[in-house]
């Protein structure tokens, strides 16, 4: 089931790191939006994802299509992972609690690499 796969992606009870690859695989078949680093945004059905987080979308629609006639005749596309800025997924497709728990767990397991140090606030009195 989608939830079992998601659990596996999230590392289960162990200290395994979060696998974005596995997480995206649970979204295959769903509608997602991808925003690229050249500011182009595309929506479509997630067809496949790979280890580089390259994404293949089918039934693509370009957001703000009038601005980009270059992409008008494009039905399916392969988007290189390195050029993706955001992937937007419908909240209904994701168990946000499971994700939050995993993030919390991962922070707990590796506090030194994840901790952010904040400087003591400077107090200045005029």
């Amino acid at each position, binding site marked *: 089931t989608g939830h079992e796969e998601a659990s596996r992606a999230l590392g289960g009870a162990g200290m395994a790191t979060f696998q974005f690859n596995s997480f995206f695989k649970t979204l295959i078949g769903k509608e997602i939006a991808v925003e*690229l680093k*050249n500011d182009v945004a595309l929506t479509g059905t997630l067809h496949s*994802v790979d280890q580089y987080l390259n994404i293949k979308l089918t039934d693509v629609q370009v957001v703000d299509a009038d601005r980009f006639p270059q992409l*008008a005749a494009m039905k399916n596309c392969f988007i290189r992972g390195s050029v993706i800025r955001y992937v937007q997924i419908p909240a209904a497709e994701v168990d946000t609690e499971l994700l939050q728990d995993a993030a919390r767990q991962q922070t707990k397991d590796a506090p030194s690499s994840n901790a952010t140090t904040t400087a003591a606030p400077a107090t200045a009195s005029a």
Partner: protein
Amino acid sequence: MAASLDQLVNKVITVVTNDGRNIVGNLRGYDQTTNLILDDCHERVFSTTAGVQQEVLGLYIIRGDNIAIIGELDQDVDSQADLSVVRAEPLKPVTH
């Protein structure tokens, strides 16, 4: 590579490069870094002041580092477009 380019081999594709160019050609080959071999390709230069210019390139290898999107060109839709009347801003370059 589960998200494979295998289905696109020997098909006409449109490539958007990191510098915002649009190159159309026949995909002959690829590798894991998405380097591409493109046959009979041409660049489509879009401008806001003139129709689309097509510059014939021939047989090209495009390095994967430089590639943003590889799209399957729907030739039915593409053949209906009159590129000489299309006016558009060129695509922005990719900024990391």
